[in-house]
């Protein structure tokens, strides 16, 4: 590839990183473009995905959930993937790439802990030392995942700066990487960051959309009218959307964390409310004040608690190919319970945002086929949801 490979999606993306990282990002770009074309790499990746990761994940017709509305709601069951979320696709892919590049150490950031767990699992399987940065607030609200990471052999560092959530964990991981980049690979967990990360993470998550499209054609006999996914940084959504990008009949909808409501200052709805920002190595949208200080966001779901967005989503919004809405904390918690009781599936709080919007959409469009990416399972969220329901007296 030439110097034209700058990682821009329209005006978004690119590389905005300290000089110390620039040569390392260039080496990563070259290595990524190699594996992209290398059938041996893909064969190795897919083999691990199958026998160790449990792919392909099923497409499931949520019959009980669909019954009242008349619409047909299908779930792409990424919650059944090894580790309990789609994050495993990206983690295995990047750790394989890091080994190929001769790196000897892996670092990662994590919000809900799913990406940290996925990276810790990948490192255990592929025999690499692993350090995970996690905001101290998230360490407290996602305790089971912290225990899982430690069990898998990772070192978990609780980040005490700023709002002590995902943004701060990324800042700290970037600092580590600036100091250690000659030996260390930073496995960014979402389709964000400097080039080539947004493109590389999408490449590794495209497996979701590729499988889902084929399953829709085979099992439903048609494409869905809507493809829905929750959006924090945007990796599960971009993975799903990529499968349907060229199918203009399929409406792509991303669901953002509405927190206490997007009219308040306690939410994380970047695509609904953000403005152009540069941070974490990319030009994208962000929630910020007039001086360009990035806000701390709020969501009940740690995995969506991020004040920026993967740059390709900003581009898809502006181009009109995808649209983005927000569901608030209460709505996500209700959907968490609804899916559990109707289908016997406990969704991650992140995915519950998409389920909630699917239920609304099903009522508005009773004859439609709605595909929801169920990006993760919700066992990790049980204690947090119980506290929330009691504190805020949520009517279920």
């Amino acid at each position, binding site marked *: 590839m030439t110097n034209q490979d*700058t990682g821009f999606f329209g005006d978004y993306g*690119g*590389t*905005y*990183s*300290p*000089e*110390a*990282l*620039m*040569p*390392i990002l260039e080496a990563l770009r070259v290595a990524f473009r190699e594996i992209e074309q290398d059938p041996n790499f893909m064969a190795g990746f897919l083999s691990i995905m199958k026998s160790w990761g449990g792919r392909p994940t099923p497409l499931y017709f949520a019959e009980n959930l669909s019954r009242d509305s008349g619409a047909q709601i299908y779930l792409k069951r990424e919650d059944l993937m090894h580790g309990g979320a789609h994050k495993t696709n990206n983690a295995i892919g990047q750790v394989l790439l890091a080994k190929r590049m001769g790196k000897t150490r892996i670092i990662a950031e994590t919000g809900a802990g799913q990406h940290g767990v996925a990276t810790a699992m990948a490192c255990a399987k592929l025999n690499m030392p692993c350090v995970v940065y996690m905001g101290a607030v998230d360490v407290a609200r996602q305790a089971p995942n912290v225990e899982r990471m430690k069990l898998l052999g990772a070192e978990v560092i609780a980040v005490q*700066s*700023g709002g002590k959530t995902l*943004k701060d964990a990324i*800042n700290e991981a*970037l*600092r580590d990487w*600036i*100091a*250690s*980049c*000659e030996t260390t690979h930073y496995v960014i967990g979402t389709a964000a960051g400097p080039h080539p990360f947004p493109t590389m993470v999408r490449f590794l998550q495209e497996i979701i959309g590729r499988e889902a499209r084929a399953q829709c054609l085979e099992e439903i006999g048609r494409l869905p009218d809507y493809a829905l996914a929750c959006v924090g940084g945007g990796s599960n959504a971009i993975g799903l959307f990529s499968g349907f990008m060229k199918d203009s009949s399929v409406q792509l909808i991303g669901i953002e964390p509405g927190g206490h409501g997007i009219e308040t200052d306690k939410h994380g709805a970047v695509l609904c409310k953000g403005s*152009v*920002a*540069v*941070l*974490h*190595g990319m030009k994208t949208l*962000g929630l*910020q*004040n*007039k*001086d*360009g*200080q*990035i806000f701390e966001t709020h969501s009940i779901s740690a995995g969506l608690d991020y004040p920026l967005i993967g740059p390709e989503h900003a581009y898809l919004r502006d181009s009109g190919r995808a649209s983005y809405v927000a569901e608030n904390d209460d709505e996500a918690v209700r959907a968490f319970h609804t899916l559990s009781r109707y289908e016997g599936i406990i969704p991650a709080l992140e995915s519950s945002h998409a389920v909630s919007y699917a239920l609304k959409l099903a009522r508005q469009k009773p004859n439609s086929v709605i595909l929801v990416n169920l990006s993760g399972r919700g066992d990790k969220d049980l204690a947090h949801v119980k506290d929330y329901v009691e504190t805020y007296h949520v009517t279920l």
Partner: protein
Amino acid sequence: MSRYKFIKDKIQNGTSVYMPYVLMGYPDAETSFQVAKTLIDNGVHGLEIGFPFRDPVADGSVIETAANIALDNGFTVDTGFSVIERVRALSPDIPLTLMLYYNMVLARGIDQFFADCHAAGIDGVLIPDMPPERADTVCFAAKHNGIDLVFIAAPTTTAERLDIISRVASGFIYVVTRMGITGSVENYSDQLSGLFTLIKSKIDLPAIAGFGISTPEQARKMIAAGADGVITGSKIVELTTKSMDDLARHTQDMVRG
């Protein structure tokens, strides 16, 4: 005439220049002005002036903590520019280099930002998360307002990248002397003199060493390795809340070299 000529002349006369870093608004606007005044009164050859940012990924924990305190105490970009105007009034000669993150430039509007720099008496701007490949977005506004763009070279920077940097850099080159973040752990890269030789073969600007320097001994090592001068940052932040007398003594020691 660019005020960076002031340091160029010093260097030509055999003086190693000292250009410490002051974080605006830390712990409050008035104290940061007093810090700048103390540094100037004690003979520094230039100042690097930082604007606090909540997410300073190219800085270490000392500056991050201080930046958060400054912002919690009400720092705004407007405050920052008004303090700089007062600092400029203290010395007509020394170059003032503003260091801040790209998002703050973007949020103010690129044209407005560089016009404000010019009005406040800034000579150069260093944006640590804007690589030279992205400088096209600010070059015109900077030039229009007579502001130099200062860039960083790091131990990982290749000869090829120095060519890219040389096309857009002016003022001086900020040489990151070890991988990692600003702070004071003593762990200098062995290949430093090679780095300075390479930079000087490619770029005809003063090469000023920063990151991880806090004592005259460390500064002397940098000069011996080929640096034309040094910047200290975290050390100034640490001394700010101790006493202005300590800060004055430290400055005299550093200026003496």
